[in-house]
């Protein structure tokens, strides 16, 4: 399997640009593992990304067609490509700032249209590439370079946003749980219609070190420990769920063909 995955990567792309401890490398591998396990041909895949650290996961690493677009616009570019050539298996991989802040409009409308594509949002709760500014996903109270006294704004729940917008498959997993993550990505890829996967990915460089995570290991361990499966979360009180992140599949509307 590892040999198979290496063949899906552009050798010229190494070394990767990701910081030590960044979660995006795990996601980069998980997507390829999902495609390899599904035995999909990379030649029929189109990976579309926006701007930011996560946008570099497919471009230039993946040996497939990749479209590295403008900040926020990946989903709209993907919409055009998919509608004109429905044979393409289209996957958008981009960050939280890219997809939910500057690109929020395209995200909700593609979900509403149920365009047959998979959107993977690598959520590190920060603008990493530009120097650790607050994002629309940064937790309340977190310290960032633009909220030195703590973030006064509430973050988006991206899965609820996608669900409310009409996405027919919605799930969340952390990179700290790579096996459920890969399984989730496979389900999202084979889903007919608009699928959305929020992938929690730690950014020790821009987020962790300003927020009491002394090392990258500490941060990814805390991420894993904070996750609670959606099945287990059912029946727990808000008090019991405080500080927890619910992971798993939230929407699985089967048998609904997407617009393409």
């Amino acid at each position: 399997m590892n040999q198979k995955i290496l063949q899906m990567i552009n050798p010229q792309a190494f070394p990767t640009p990701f910081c030590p401890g960044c979660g995006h490398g795990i996601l980069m591998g998980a997507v390829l593992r999902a495609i390899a396990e599904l035995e999909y041909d990379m030649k029929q895949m189109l990976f579309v990304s926006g701007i930011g650290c996560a946008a570099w996961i497919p471009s230039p690493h993946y040996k497939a067609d990749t479209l590295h677009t403008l900040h926020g616009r990946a989903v709209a570019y993907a919409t055009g490509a998919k509608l004109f050539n429905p044979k393409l298996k289209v996957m958008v991989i981009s960050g939280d700032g890219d997809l939910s802040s500057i690109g929020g409009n395209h995200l909700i409308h593609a979900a509403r249209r149920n365009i047959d594509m998979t959107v993977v949002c690598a959520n590190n709760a920060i603008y990493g590439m530009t120097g650790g500014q607050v994002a629309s996903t940064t937790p309340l109270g977190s310290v960032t370079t633009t909220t030195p006294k703590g973030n006064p704004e509430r973050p988006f729940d991206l899965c609820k946003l996608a669900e409310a917008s009409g996405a027919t498959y919605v799930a969340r997993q952390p990179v700290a749980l790579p096996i459920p993550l890969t399984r989730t990505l496979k389900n999202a890829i084979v889903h007919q219609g608009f699928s959305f996967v929020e992938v929690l990915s730690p950014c020790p460089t821009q987020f962790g070190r300003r927020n009491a995570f002394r090392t990258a290991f500490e941060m990814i361990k805390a991420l894993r420990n904070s996750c609670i499966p959606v099945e287990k979360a059912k029946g727990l009180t808000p008090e019991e769920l405080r500080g927890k992140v619910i992971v798993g599949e939230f929407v699985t509307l089967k048998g609904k063909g997407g617009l393409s």
Partner: protein
Amino acid sequence: MPIKKVKSPLAPGWYFMQGDEACAEGAIAAGCRFYAGYPITPASEVMIRMVHRLSDVGGVFIQMEDEIGSISSVIGASWAGAKAMTATSGPGISLMIEGIGYAVITETPCVIVDVQRAGPSTGQATRPGQGDMMQVKWGPHGDNEIVALAPWSVQEMYDLTIKAFNLAERFRVPAFLLADEAVGHLRETLVVKEEVEVFDRFKAPGQPPFGTNEPNGVPPMPSFGEGENLLVTGSTHDERGFRKTADSAVQARLTERLIRKVKDFSSEIIETDPHLLRDAEIGVVAYGFTARAALQAVKSLRKQEIKAGLLRLVSIWPFAGEAIAQLGKRCRSIFVPEMNQGQVAGELRKYTTAPVISLPKTNGEVIEPGEIVEGIRRNMP
């Protein structure tokens, strides 16, 4: 050039048609099979016609969430292999500017129709203007070389839309149809011929899609799904598409070629339409709907024993600098009526030392022949 002749999808003959609708017909004739748009006056009629015509020919139509989404999906569709178009007006162009810059650096062929209205900002949505002449050229940051054509009739809304597609494909650039509300909403005769000349993008499997041996070459363009492992990026990239964000040689080579691949071949693009210029002492330069008034003005000046002539600019970008230089040598002065505060008049001054006199009008009404005659008589040397 691999130009081919295809049968017109619209039955040949005479039609009484609106300019915006003729534009849509021209797009279909040129092979446009993808349209993404957002409603805006005075360009919406292009979109509405495209809904029906794309359905007839098996193309794809989508009304996007905004103009940013429109240009984005047009670029995405173009890389999926489509001849793709969007149509809008000034406010929509303002939103599309970043995407237009992306189309320039990724060398994505696409056609953008701008049915200009009176600005700035929301301005007067139903009134004509010609205020986007500079915006389409200089809107995106960095240096850009694009193509822009300015129709003056319903016939040219059809013909120049076809030409815009052919030039976009030939040079791998965004091509603009710089129309205005007056010509967009005008109804008059359209003659459709039996055959249409169309240019399809050049393909060469395995060849680099973003570089050529020549410093002014247009590389072949593969599509997604052809097994080329395409790397398309708006960052500076080498000939295979790899990001090179700190390599000054790659940056210099790319930016120079993006300009020279159009500029060095501008004679294939530039089109002017001279009227009564042979012995003219007074030159008039005009384009779009205003050129109709200018032609009338020149004719009435001739009746008043004033030797005036019109140089109509059919193409705006790249600019017809050589034709202006020649005009400047033979005329005592050049008058430029336009529905803006002298945008193209200023461009003329780069190419001639002859006096260039701007006749601007920005009250949201078209320029009338009498106003041009009066402006010329008042300022005659």
